[in-house]
């Protein structure tokens, strides 16, 4: 690999890390706080992508401006889904919530398919694909913008969890649900808020992905898997871990992809499994 190529690959990995961090952010929050592996996370991402697509296609809204709309819509949906459904089984064993969210994913994806068809869509703006060159390395504006949006949202969530009253209650509930109740936390509400924030972040990730990859209703599954892997790599517990996990995943994916594209997924998963065995608490996580 030449230096220029290495530089470009490095930049690609950095740009990918940002998006993947956002993809995994909500997933990690829901898993860490509620101990739910939300397999419907990918479906939420897809919904975000469709919202951005239709706002752009029908109303001409700039895709970046549609991000708040997608977040709000998914936040609302997340709240409803949590209160109406997830909350009913939240104390059931692992397998139950796993399969419940799988059923939900099946349902949402199929409904999207039914209403919007399996056609591939992409959001193409006049600035799509444009960018600037830094030495031999090319940086596309959209990808850079996506990185920026991801970082802003990651930082915003970190701030929210750290410094707001609700954020603190979310963290407290994740650590000790009964003790949280004893400080007056309405756990059902906090769980709904947590899940809704997770869904909202998925919506934002979907908006960004719609500008970057052509998508159809089945886009999400691959990203749920990635989010899962990122959480394992980084460990649960805080926002920084998600960023670390996403960066590791992105660098492995991009570098393996450059050398062994046909085996990239196998290698990534092999590394993941190996890591699980050697460091079950994640690379960044601390053992408790």
């Amino acid at each position, binding site marked *: 690999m030449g230096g220029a190529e290495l530089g470009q690959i490095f930049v690609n990995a950095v740009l990918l890390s940002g998006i993947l961090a956002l993809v995994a952010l909500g997933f990690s929050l829901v898993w860490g706080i509620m101990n739910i*592996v939300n397999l419907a996370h990918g479906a939420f991402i897809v919904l975000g992508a469709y919202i951005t697509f239709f706002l752009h296609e029908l109303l001409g809204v700039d895709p970046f401006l549609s991000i708040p709309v997608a977040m709000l819509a998914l936040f609302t949906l997340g709240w409803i889904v949590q209160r109406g459904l997830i*909350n*009913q089984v939240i104390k059931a064993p692992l397998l139950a919530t796993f399969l419940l969210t799988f059923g*939900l*994913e099946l349902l949402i994806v199929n409904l999207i398919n039914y209403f919007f068809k399996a056609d591939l869509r992409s959001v193409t703006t006049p600035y799509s694909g444009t960018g600037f060159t830094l030495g031999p390395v090319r940086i596309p504006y959209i990808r850079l913008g996506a990185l920026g949006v991801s970082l802003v949202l990651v930082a915003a969530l970190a701030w929210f969890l750290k410094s707001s009253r609700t954020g603190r209650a979310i963290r407290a509930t994740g650590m000790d649900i009964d003790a949280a109740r004893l400080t007056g936390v309405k*756990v*059902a509400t906090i769980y709904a808020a947590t899940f809704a924030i997770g869904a909202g972040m998925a919506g934002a990730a979907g908006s960004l992905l719609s500008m970057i990859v052509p998508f159809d209703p089945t886009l999400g599954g691959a990203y749920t898997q990635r989010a899962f892997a990122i959480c394992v790599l980084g460990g649960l517990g805080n926002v920084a871990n998600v960023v670390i996990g996403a960066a590791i995943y992105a660098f492995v994916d991009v570098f393996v992809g450059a050398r062994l594209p*046909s085996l990239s997924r196998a290698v990534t998963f092999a590394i993941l499994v190996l890591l*699980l065995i050697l460091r079950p608490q994640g690379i960044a996580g601390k053992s408790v």
Partner: protein
Amino acid sequence: MGFLALLALLLALPKLVSSYKLLTYTRFLILALMAQGWNFIGGYTGYAAFGNVAYFGIGAYTTGLLMIGKWHVPFFPALAAGALLSACVAILLGLPILRLKGHYFAIATLGVAEALAQVADNWDSLTDGSTGIDLPIKSEGEFFYYTALGFVILGLLATWAFARSKIGYGCVAIREDQDAARMLGINTTLYKGIAYAISAVFAAIAGGITAYQNVHVTPGDFFKIDYTLQMIIATIIGGVGSVAGPVLGAAVYQLLSTYIWGRFIELHPTVLGFIIIFFIVFLPRGLMTVIGRRRKSGERPFKASDLLANVRAHRVT
């Protein structure tokens, strides 16, 4: 009596139905076989294995590759070889990954299955990669039906014996409390490994039969996560950790999916999603809790209100 009648009906079935219907029944039996296998590790031992399709694929490829190529091994020895290889792989992989718990075990098994699928996809010299291999053609549908039926009956007997055996008790103890199990003198590593290997054998047999029946075997079709999910869903519908639950669940799943498939062509995944949600929310321990209750002394029969009680038990306020 009911059981003998059912057995007679099952044995006579190929004479009673069209050969396509028979294919549907064979598929039900194959799903039952996979679910029976999953029940050992997921049901009795309590480890949420999400990668059992890997053994389905290994079974299919081993059976297939031995039957074609230079060896031309007959079907049953090839099937046995597939089952054996699967068991070995399960033990080798199981040693490290069975140390993981909960979600982490689930993702590790999922990861192993994905990685194996990719290996099959790229090992051109052995598997012919994504192109796939074609087995010898055998057109007698009864053969596959009876083979699958035989294995399912064997599976029922094996499950029944397992549940009453020391290994069964050991596995259940591991499911309930791993520390307690160790203190009771149970070699947890060994027993988890055994349960995992048994589940791999069942999946491999199912894979081998399916391969011979479908003829064309590709990584895309035989390493699909859908199979893993189907076996789990079937087990849950029937009743996790019960002898007949997986078979019952597979029957219901196959029946529902055939029915839904015919009635809601475009929306059948939605309906399937609803069914999964229904079972998880209202009947998390499966149909066996509805129909199997009276068999245990001291238990009251199932009431409709228990459906709501199941919800209340797991809700958070």
